[in-house]
């Protein structure tokens, strides 16, 4: 029943986002909003899929790619690009070139993490979490340091990259990202059964005849692509992945990824829409989506940590 409500709520929110306060201006306002809606949908799907799959692979409900440093590395990379190539880098590479490079970088990081996950097994979750949090902080300071050496114009570009915002995405970017993510989502949809088995753990998966190493590598590669797309479209989202994943588990009440994954996407998109609506109409732009999402998801994560009391 809850699920039906969730699914009905989503289009309602989308319509509200598109039409509220727009004055039915179909020539300018609404197309702009459509682009933003597209960015929201694509990013939401990316965050939801990457978080749930990562948690399945890692075997716990606390870690997500964002926390494990993916976003930190992405931002550092962008800062380095700007440092080496200047604002010309944007023109030189073009948005596509930048995106491809970023995806390559994320894939590399995925490979590194996956080697560790394979070696550690399920390991000490909280140690990984602490490592991820501190790594993100350290990468943040490196990024800030690089920002120091850039010119003011470049600096403001980098600054804006560090916040969640739906206004940055260009229509072409949204389109290409959407196509890419659709392809990934299709791959994921075909392999939900594999994910269910992976959730049982490495030993159990191998005992059931699954090539654990290969599956892990594939899934981590998909995660890398998803994170690269979402961070380049809307910026870093920190703890939103944890929030979305856990709410999806609670709503789904089933361990099947077939059920959980679409629900997670719905939750993520719904949350973005809600945040944007609140910012526009309740807070009158006196706050930003980034801040709202940080507040809510950060508080949720803290409560989750306190409640689990050290038992993953």
């Amino acid at each position: 029943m809850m699920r039906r409500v969730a699914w009905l709520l989503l289009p309602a929110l989308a319509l509200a986002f598109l039409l509220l306060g727009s004055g039915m201006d179909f020539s300018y306002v609404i197309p702009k909003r459509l682009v933003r809606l597209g960015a929201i949908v694509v990013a939401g799907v990316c965050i939801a899929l990457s978080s749930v799959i990562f948690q399945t692979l890692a075997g716990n409900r606390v870690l997500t790619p964002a926390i494990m440093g993916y976003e930190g590395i992405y931002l550092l990379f962008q800062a380095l690009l700007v440092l080496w190539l200047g604002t010309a880098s944007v023109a030189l590479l073009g948005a596509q070139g930048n995106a491809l490079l970023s995806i390559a970088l994320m894939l590399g990081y995925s490979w590194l993490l996956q080697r560790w996950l394979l070696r550690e097994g399920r390991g000490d979750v909280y140690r990984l979490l602490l490592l991820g949090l501190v790594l993100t902080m350290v990468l943040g300071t490196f990024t800030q340091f690089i920002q120091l050496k850039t010119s003011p114009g470049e600096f403001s570009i980098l600054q804006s990259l560090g916040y969640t915002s739906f206004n940055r995405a260009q229509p072409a970017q949204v389109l290409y990202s959407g196509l890419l993510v659709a392809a990934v989502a299709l791959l994921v949809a075909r392999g939900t059964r594999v994910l269910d088995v992976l959730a049982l753990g490495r030993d159990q998966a191998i005992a059931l005849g699954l090539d654990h190493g290969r599956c892990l590598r594939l899934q981590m590669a998909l995660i890398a692509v998803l994170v690269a797309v979402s961070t380049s479209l809307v910026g870093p989202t920190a703890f939103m992945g944890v929030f979305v994943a856990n709410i999806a588990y609670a709503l789904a009440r089933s361990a099947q990824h077939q059920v959980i994954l679409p629900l997670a996407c719905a939750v993520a998109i719904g949350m973005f829409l809600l945040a944007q609506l609140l910012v526009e109409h309740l807070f009158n732009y006196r706050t930003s989506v980034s801040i709202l999402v940080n507040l809510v998801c950060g508080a949720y994560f803290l409560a989750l940590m306190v409640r689990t009391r050290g038992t993953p």
Partner: protein
Amino acid sequence: MSRVLLPTLLLLLCGVSLMVGASQMSWSALWSASDDAWLTLTASRLPRLAALVLTGVGLSICGVILQQIVRNRFVEPATCGGLDAAKLGILVALTVLPGAGASGRMLFALVFCLLASLVYVAIIRRIRFTNLVLVPVIGLMYGSLLSAIAEFYAYRHNILQSMQGWLLGDFSRVIEGNYEIIYLILPIVVLTYLYAQRFTVLGMGEGMATSLGLNYAATAILGLVLVAVTVSATVITVGATPFVGLVVPNLVALRYGENLKRTLPIVAMCGAALLLACDILGRLLIHPYEVPIGLTAGSVGGVLFLLLILWKCK
């Protein structure tokens, strides 16, 4: 490091710190009593040196006290929400009492830091776990939450941009007439040294402390007050300097143990030395501009922290 080596190293670093800077200054200029050189020395270099040493000493001692109260190696102002609470306090002070001077803002920072630390300690005590790593994780999350609240607040009052700038640790702000509040750290250091044994006993846990005749609650609260004063003094004068209080006590404990009576002076000196080294590095890297200490200490400290986690939790 023998009893002689560490103080010598410290004095050396102090000397280098005085010499390095944006404006050229040489010993010959000083000897010839040139006005410019003396002005640079007294108005900028010496206050900066004092602030550096006191901040290094103060923050590492804060780390030690917090680690004894929470009984966890990885706790310090940045990983227990104290630093972020102090920032929030300053923000609130700016908007609520815009006319208040440094002392007014420090008072706000102090109160926020103390309250946040009390809440943190209460949370940790209610949950019984021996997991070394979960405690700082909760602290970091708690700190991010406070940071998010601070951002929310700053955005509403349109001071978000400036908040980013001046809340990051930066010693270039320290000039004569603007930094004296940091001398508050001196009595705190003395008091902590006098109470070193008590804080070690505190670290043995409530049961043992009570058995040995220590009033656990009173000592813990005293410790938190000392920490709050130090953190707020440093944040007001210099800005946020993370990880010093975590890395230094841990490294010292590896070599010298944790009998505070013996190791507190070593911790203090190492803290000052680390901060001096980071500051000199920051001033030399992009000379004549400088990298704020918040970044150098954050990077160096952060990397050391990562290594500690990897090594400690085998």
